[in-house]
């Protein structure tokens, strides 16, 4: 079994790389962005063993070999719908009542 902090060859993993250091970035950036490096994350099959943070090469889905720091092993997707927005929960009820009132008035007027 894969340990959460080490990958072995063949594991599906994510790596992290710096693409451009702040000094190498476009000159056309707002100051908050210009102060940060341009970073990237990419997934692929590990080509060897590594611990989180260590350099590892991955083979991507297109077959490219890319090296970077191991950032996650078998990374998942945890985005959600979350809680219903309180500002929206009454919209359906309000509109159904309004539609019923409109239909009643249309009938009355006909």
């Amino acid at each position, binding site marked *: 079994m894969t340990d959460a902090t080490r990958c072995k060859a063949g594991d599906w993993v994510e790596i992290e790389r710096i693409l451009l250091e702040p000094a190498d970035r476009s000159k056309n950036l707002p100051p908050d962005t210009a102060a*940060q490096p341009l970073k990237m994350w990419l997934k692929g099959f590990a080509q060897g063993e590594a611990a989180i943070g260590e350099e590892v090469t991955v083979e991507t889905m297109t077959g490219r070999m890319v090296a970077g720091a191991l950032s996650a092993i078998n990374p998942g*997707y945890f985005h959600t*719908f979350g809680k219903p927005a309180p500002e929206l929960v009454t919209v359906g009820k309000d509109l159904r009542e309004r539609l019923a009132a409109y239909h009643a008035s249309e009938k009355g007027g006909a």
Partner: protein
Amino acid sequence: MATKFDEIMARRGEIMHRALGMDYAQFERSPIAFDYEAMMADHGYSLKDIKQIQTKAGVGNTPLLELRNLTDLARSISDPGKGARIFVKDEAANLAGAFKDRRASVSIHVAKEKGYEGVIAATSGNYGAAVSSQAARYGLKCIICQETFDSRHVGQPEIVEKSRICEAYGAEVIQMTVGPELFFHMVELLDITGYFAASLYSSFGVSGIETLGLEIADEMRALTGAPPTACVITHAGGGNTTGTARGLKRAGATETQIVSASVDLSGLHMASDHDFNRKSFTTGHTGFGVPFATWPDRADVPRNAARALRYIDRYLTVTQGEVFYITEAMCKMEGLERGPAGNTAMTAAVSLARELPREATIVVQETEYTGAGKHHWAQLNFAREMGVQVRRGDPAENKPGEVIVVPERLEQIQAKDFDLGRMRKSYVRNAVKAAPADYEPTDADIEFLAADTNTDADTVARLVREVKEA
């Protein structure tokens, strides 16, 4: 010393030429004008050919639905005799869940025909899903470059979902932090791989949208006896407006008013690391809509096929809170859980319906798939986590990045007209600025600019004078 960024960007023309498989220089006519229609026709596909490509690809022929409840609700707040019928083209029914499939289906078909091994696109939107899905069907390799995270590695939930769907279709997804250098890395990857650039702005992609306009004209004729009075289009980079409007015109619907609609994100900087996660819409907003309409050739192709000002009759803006309200209303009143970004045009349509007579018809020309992260609840929860205030009230109090105001009542939804005159002047300024300083526009240039701004030679000549004098 030249940076890595400068080096790649200096070779950009040569790299893109090979990656697009098309020589754009042949269409250039002067430092200002180019032959737009010749560029659009260069691929040699008729509208019928494109229909066939799309039918095979599982794209197009989406349901056209009349939204009777939303229409009646608009009528309930309209003056007597007002309240146009609202229809929607349910583009979420396309293979990967959005109208973007129309664009991708043609681009990927071309890539396969020209013998490329793979395709690359830089997109954080539904186009990534569309390209990945079509590439999977055609057996092509696929790389999608996305702007996903801020510098703290906090992802926009809507974009994180796009990463997931692209990976589900087998694409290699490059998730990046904020910055326009997304395009630099795309160009670098095109150079390394020799893949096809599936640009959103090529003639292939934009031609693929023309079938949407064609279907709308034909289906509305069958349903109501005439093409729609108005077609409302969510507007970002301009391809949606351009392709749909061209398709309507090619189908003879020359009287249909072309209304583009964007979410107002004024005040937010699109390249700001801080602002990135303080907007709830990653597309369909003024942050793309205005700059791309006023200077389309800022795109990743030498000449952009998406030239919205050629076609827009009216440009409306709405607020984020208004779109969230309509998104919820579509769920509860029409049984359509879609969007949210694709519902920008629907929000403008509800406002527009109140101005038009009952006999008039409005077609909202798209919906898009929804899901975890890419959902109005998820977006509002995320906004709150990022410190944006969310409350009910008057949408006029909306302040992008600071306050999202969800309307308390339907009648508070009021689209605002964006000044097209100002946009046209800004476009002419950019076109004149792109030419050498001592270049005097010829009559042919004036004619080109008139077509490109949907005005006439006198108006353009006046604008050129004003711009040159300023």
